[in-house]
């Protein structure tokens, strides 16, 4: 490997060295403040190095496995900043849970490294490795709490179902490889094969199986069964991570695979995607309606949100609308990251003192506006953004999705998006109404780092909603480079 190649891998190298340093520090001194500070600092350093590399970028392959381009760096920046905020929010939560919490941050960094690998990967080998790195760290993070069979149950469910979906995906990869003889995305795109008979069948079934595996990880209907249970059982900061960083990394690789290989040319796959998106939006929103647990409600709402994202993903199948669709999905994902981290961040802060089970019952949030107005304000902003109310990033994101859908003329899906948003309004606003009710005070100790991190997330969300121009410029430059 040459120096320039090493230089363009700077973010990954930085993060890896932070992981190694952190491991040594934990081995010698267990101090949660130090561990958390080091991880947050390391993630900031990684973020700086992402922008550093992005500044004078010479896009290109680094070994056949990874590619460093504006697209990979944008998703890396998103993943690293997501992990940064989750680290800060998790600190106060972890302090209250006694000893042996240091490894949590080590696992968080390792999972982030897996996410960055996914964003860079352009080869099935690095794809599977990144996915497993993310997955294995997540199993341990979900089952992290020392007491509580609840989280163990969630981890076991995630482990088994995730392993099955990985197996299905590997089978699909093997079928594609059997026809095309390569695992690299660019070679799969350029290798010719006879588009008839068995070869075509193999490619179609293989792509379908890969898509099924990825849909599981993105928790799209009909592969969503695990989502509410795992989201409910996992500790709140881990749920935030599971809903954002893990899905963002996988979506990055899915979009890259489809645009490089041009799987959009297959009618069957497009119609499969159509049903997946349609069902995700409807089922997610309808099941979220009657939930009394905030975590379960957010789980179903995240199914619906990723369904909206898939609308933009399908819109990229039209050649004319491709750039706008990629732009839309990237912007929507940024807004989704901020909102979801913010929403689970509030649940994390509310649950700081309850060490056996997170505070996720809707009734626990009654009267929050009177006892903790600022926290309730943050939560309301997140709910409004999820519902797509103007002045929040969620509005711009949804607007973008609809614009992309209109350009590619996906009328049925657009109608479903509108219906879904209408249903969504009900349960998002219900949370806000619950918080305005009068009730007895229940004390919440807000940790300083968590509070500041929440303030920063909310501020970013509003800034993105009011003045999105710089981010839109960035996102459209990335989309232009990718098309």
């Amino acid at each position: 490997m040459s120096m320039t190649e090493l230089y363009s891998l700077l973010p990954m190298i930085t993060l890896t060295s932070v992981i190694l340093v952190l491991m040594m520090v934990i081995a010698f001194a267990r101090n949660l403040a130090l561990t958390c500070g080091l991880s947050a600092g390391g993630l900031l350093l990684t973020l700086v190095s992402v922008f550093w590399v992005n500044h004078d970028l010479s896009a290109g392959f680094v070994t056949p496995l990874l590619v460093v381009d504006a697209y990979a760096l944008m998703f890396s920046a998103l993943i690293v900043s997501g992990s940064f905020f989750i680290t800060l929010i998790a600190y106060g939560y972890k302090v209250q849970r006694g000893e042996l919490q240091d490894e949590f941050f080590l696992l968080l960094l390792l999972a982030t490294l897996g996410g960055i690998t996914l964003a860079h990967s352009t080869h099935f080998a690095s794809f599977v490795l990144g996915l497993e790195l993310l997955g294995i760290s997540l199993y341990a993070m979900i089952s992290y709490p020392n007491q509580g069979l609840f989280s163990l149950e969630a981890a076991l469910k995630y482990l088994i179902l995730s392993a099955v979906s990985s197996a299905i995906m590997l089978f699909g990869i093997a079928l594609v490889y059997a026809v095309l003889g390569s695992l690299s995305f660019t070679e799969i795109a350029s290798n010719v094969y006879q588009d008839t008979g068995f070869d075509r069948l193999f490619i179609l079934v293989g792509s379908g199986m890969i898509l099924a595996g990825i849909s599981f990880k993105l928790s799209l209907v009909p592969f969503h069964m695990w989502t509410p249970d795992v989201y409910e059982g996992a500790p709140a900061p881990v749920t935030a991570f599971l809903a954002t960083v893990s899905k963002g990394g996988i979506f990055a690789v899915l979009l890259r695979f489809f645009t490089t290989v041009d799987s959009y040319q297959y009618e069957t796959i497009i119609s499969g995607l159509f049903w997946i998106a349609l069902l995700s939006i409807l089922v997610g929103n309808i099941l979220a309606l009657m939930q009394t647990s905030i975590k379960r409600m957010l789980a179903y709402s995240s199914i619906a949100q990723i369904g909206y994202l898939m609308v933009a993903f399908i819109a990229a199948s039209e050649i004319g609308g491709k750039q706008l669709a990629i732009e839309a999905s990237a912007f929507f994902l940024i807004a989704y990251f901020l909102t979801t981290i913010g929403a689970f961040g509030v649940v994390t802060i509310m649950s700081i003192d309850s060490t056996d089970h997170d505070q996720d019952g809707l009734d626990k949030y009654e009267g929050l506006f009177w006892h903790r107005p600022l926290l309730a304000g943050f939560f309301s902003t997140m709910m409004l953004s999820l519902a797509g109310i103007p002045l929040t990033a969620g509005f711009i994101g949804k607007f973008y999705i609809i614009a992309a859908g209109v350009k590619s003329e996906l009328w049925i899906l657009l109608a479903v998006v509108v219906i879904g948003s209408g249903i969504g309004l009900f349960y998002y606003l219900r949370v806000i109404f619950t918080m305005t009710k009068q009730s007895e005070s229940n004390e919440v100790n807000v940790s300083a780092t968590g509070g500041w991190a929440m303030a920063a997330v909310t501020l970013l969300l509003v800034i993105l909603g009011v003045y999105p121009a710089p981010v839109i410029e960035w996102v459209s430059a990335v989309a232009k480079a990718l098309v």
Partner: protein
Amino acid sequence: MLELGLFYTSATVALVATVFAVTRYNVAHALIYLIISLLASAVIFYLVGAPFAAILEILIYAGAIMVLFVFVIMMLNLGSPGDGVEHQWLQPGMWIFPSILCLVLLAEIVYMLSSGDRMLQGKMIGPKQVGIDLFGPYVLAVEIASMLLLAGLVGAYHLGRKYLIDAREES
């Protein structure tokens, strides 16, 4: 054509053994079938021209990991009730079918070795080629895999430690 026959034979053995591994009620019996399934896939690897992968399959899966399994099962059955369980495992008769499957594989290997290099298609990839590739274009895969192992190690350490502490408090 003959190679294709060899392939289908070992594939059938692998399938049958896997079905038996999944449907056995007895863990030890299931393990034996699992080992046979792994051996059969090793034969398939050899057939498609990957002798190195075949050897790794036997060394790591059928060898090291299976021995670990057996150790765990043995340690879970300490004391005299364990003897009864072990006696039940070693009932005469249960070894006949696994041995037949193994004999089929053995016959295949003996045949392949006696009649020179037999493989389906393509070229033979030896250990040297694998090594050159792993430390050439795929060096980053090795690095990422090392991080993957680190994640597994840290996770297993944390989860295992929980039970160590519980056990210490009890005693």
